[in-house]
């Protein structure tokens, strides 16, 4: 009709475009930079003049030790996630389904732990692990990581279990299952999507961890990917190897971005479960 009506129609689309650009532009810049050749790296064109995989080759060259770092990240984040999920499933079930004393207090305490400044536990653990010779071991990174992954997993799973109707396990118990059997045969299979989502969120948190991995390792062969990339050295002392850092950054991030794209609906549900209710 009028100009304002037209504006009203287009404004949301414009807004969406701005939001998407805001979120993706820096990531796009990392992607483009990683595909430039060394001579081209300071170019500021929006597309690389020639697509070059030079940076990726240099990242995976044997001298860099990046493959090992990726493996370390996978081991640390994987074991942390598995252990957190195992414990959290039991706890979250109790939190969602059973009535017992101090329940609210315990749940509040568990959630409060995830807000804890990680450095407050890293400092004393660093001293302890130095004394018992745990520096440069996987367990020295896995154990402290549990301090934030376990509360996260308990919190997420509790909201998932709460969303499942009580009747399911009551029916199973009427049919002669014990509570444990009902849990194992009915609840766990039905909660699988929730457990899976929690696993993704927990894994991403553990994979992104930096402070613990930085403090607990000094041997390059034990560093996780995030630490290894930050310590990449260039050809000369004063030159930061931005090309290979961007390429390595893309390698570390792509699996997470793919997961996010595939399971965005579930991840959003998991992340917002607490805040919306």
């Amino acid at each position, binding site marked *: 009709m009028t100009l304002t009506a037209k504006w009203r129609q287009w404004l949301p689309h414009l807004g969406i475009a701005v939001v998407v650009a805001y979120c993706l532009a820096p990531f796009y810049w*990392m992607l483009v930079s990683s595909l430039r050749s060394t001579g081209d790296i300071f170019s500021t064109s929006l597309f690389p003049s020639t697509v070059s995989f030079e940076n990726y080759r240099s990242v995976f060259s044997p001298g860099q030790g990046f493959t090992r770092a990726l493996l370390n990240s996978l081991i640390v984040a994987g074991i942390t996630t598995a252990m957190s999920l195992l414990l959290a499933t*039991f706890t979250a079930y109790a939190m969602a389904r059973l009535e017992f004393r101090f329940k609210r207090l315990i749940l509040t305490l568990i959630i409060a732990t995830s807000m804890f400044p990680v450095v407050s536990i890293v400092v004393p653990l660093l001293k302890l692990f130095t004394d018992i010779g745990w520096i440069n071991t996987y367990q020295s990174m896995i154990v402290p990581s549990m301090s934030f992954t376990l509360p996260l997993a308990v919190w997420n799973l509790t909201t998932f279990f709460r969303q499942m109707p009580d009747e399911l396990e009551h029916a199973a118990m009427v049919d002669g299952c014990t509570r444990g059997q009902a849990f194992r045969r009915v609840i766990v299979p039905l909660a699988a999507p929730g457990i899976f989502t929690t696993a993704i969120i927990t894994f991403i948190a553990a994979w992104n961890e930096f402070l613990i991995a930085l403090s607990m390792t000094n041997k390059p062969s034990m560093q996780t990917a995030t630490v290894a990339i930050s310590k990449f050295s260039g050809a000369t002392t004063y030159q930061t190897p931005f090309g290979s850092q961007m390429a390595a950054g893309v390698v570390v991030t792509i699996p997470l971005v793919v997961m*996010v794209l595939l399971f965005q609906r579930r991840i959003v549900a998991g992340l917002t479960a607490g805040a919306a209710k």
Partner: protein
Amino acid sequence: MADTAIPPDTAPHQPGTAAPRRPGRPPAPQRPRRRPRSRATAGTGRLAALLVSPTLLVLTIVVLYPTLMALDESLYGTKGLDPKTGFISATEPFVGLKNYTDIFTQAGDRFWNAFWNTTFFTVVTVSLETVIGVAMALIMHRAFRGRSLVRASILVPWAIPTAISGLLWKWIFNADGIANVLLGRQVLWTADGFSAKIAVVIADVWKTAPFIGLLVLAGLQVIPKEVYEAARLDGASALQQFWRITLPLVKPALLVAVLFRCLDALRMFDLPYILIGAQKGSVETLSMLAQNEASNVRFGPASAYAVLLFLYVFLIALAFVRLLGADLIGGVGGTKKRKSHAVRVPRRRVREVAA
């Protein structure tokens, strides 16, 4: 699963097959928590203890024990020359509260610098993130098409490891980087100085504003449409609708998001450490200071700083809970009763507005 599939008509005729093996249990526990309270709670209490204790045990080992260790450690000085004997001492001397009182002397300058940096980053980033995040949420709430595209892109900054986003922004803020090209001037962002603070703020806001947007969007989506219709009938302008309806109703979700972000910002480490570097005065946070002291084997002062940061975080969290009490706990600890209460509020508002 197989035994749950008994046809419904056979079950009443043969109650024996479906009867629980333990006679002590009520046969049809439709509401096992409410009715036979004493017996049921005794049983579930034991089960709950069994299920919850492994988690509590692990958290005791990885959180409570280190915290107590830090408290103890913060009372000791660093190894060094013993002034009395002139030998290098093999153990750390007990110094009492000296590590804490030192922050009020010359030695405390670095602590206070880190303290104010931490506070500055928290206040500035969380305020900016809240404003941008709410704006994003409002935009996304209006959009009908392309919603999954937005949702996916909003998760990208969240999924990128902070360490990597530190490198990414270091590259953008490089002297010859894209930021300076776009601005058309030479700012030395990643050198020590006020511009370094700005660089950290921009990078942090980029990473987490979308996350606040996501949480607020979730809050927006539970507001019933009728409230807005009623307000529109009463002639409320868009701005009035935002201040009088949207903001109050989305407040619980927003507060939880802001609290989480505050506590997260107070422990900021990766971003300034990678983007600007270790021991850079302009961006050194309390986490960076404590980590740096610890990695230089000065465990006593490092523990004291860590304890002070912990207290700071604790006080902020407590202030939030005290100020905003029920709203917050409804969001954090939400039992079923609380949930229904949270839903009831908008409905009552509907009636108020509609009346």
